[in-house]
């Protein structure tokens, strides 16, 4: 987890942790690099409607904002990939980098949340327990575990920035 260090912060990553973080963000970059499919719940969540009751106005706004928003998301995911070695290790972040990581981790959790169909009623621990009982090797167990890990990681990073 992240802790303060000098003017920024530091965290130690196991190889397994680095691998999963890099995998999720790599998938996001790939998802954002092609043509955006708004039927995909992840894309829908990344580029939400700006006008709740006006689909065509929302679509028009999206045309204006989509390119920039897409670039920002790709850049912030790439920043994490550039900072985090695949084998893990100690990572130092400046305040600016911390804020970029924070947004990238948000995207990672949003993407996983969309894939996992997380709702206000979801209890992650219970879901994980049930998924493990059904099939410990299932992708759902993997996704839930990663989601939970990223939640704690992000919380620690917010904690550093808010201190």
């Amino acid at each position, binding site marked *: 987890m992240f802790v303060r260090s000098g003017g920024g912060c530091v965290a130690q990553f196991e190889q397994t942790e680095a691998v999963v973080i890099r995998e999720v963000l790599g998938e996001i970059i790939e998802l954002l690099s092609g043509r955006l499919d708004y039927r995909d719940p992840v894309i829908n*969540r*990344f*580029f*939400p*409607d*700006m*006008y*709740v009751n006006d689909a065509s106005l929302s679509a028009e*706004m999206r045309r204006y*904002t989509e390119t*920039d*928003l897409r670039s*920002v*998301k790709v850049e912030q995911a790439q920043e994490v990939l550039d900072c985090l070695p695949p084998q893990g290790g100690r990572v130092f972040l400046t305040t600016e980098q911390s*804020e970029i990581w*924070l*947004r990238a981790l*948000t*995207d990672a*959790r*949003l993407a996983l*949340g969309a894939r996992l169909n*997380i*709702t*206000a009623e*979801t209890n992650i621990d219970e879901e994980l327990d049930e998924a493990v009982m059904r099939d410990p090797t299932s992708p759902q167990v993997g996704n839930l575990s990663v989601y939970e890990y990223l*939640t*704690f990681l*992000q*919380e*620690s990073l*917010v*904690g550093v*920035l*808010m201190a």
Partner: protein
Amino acid sequence: MVAVAMTARAAPVQEVDTTEDELVLPDTPWVTVVWDDPVNLMSYVTWVFQKLFGYSRDKAERLMLDVHHKGKAVVSAGLRERMESDAARLHAYGLWATVDRG
């Protein structure tokens, strides 16, 4: 929104701050609304409000709690173009924001 009990945090300030921070909406034509979502951390949302709008920690936290408990909250008010810009910036931080008449 999600809360993670990881570290001991200072208790919320008890005094009511009546100075700067009430969002007064007399004849402001448009507003930016942030909606609750099941993924974003309460602490992160608070941080975003401070970062993007320059709100105090207290005000940002109150707004976040409004979003959390009421399902949505107005986070800024003003001209339409400005609200669209605010909403776009909030989207860049992964929040779900919309624009509406004030």
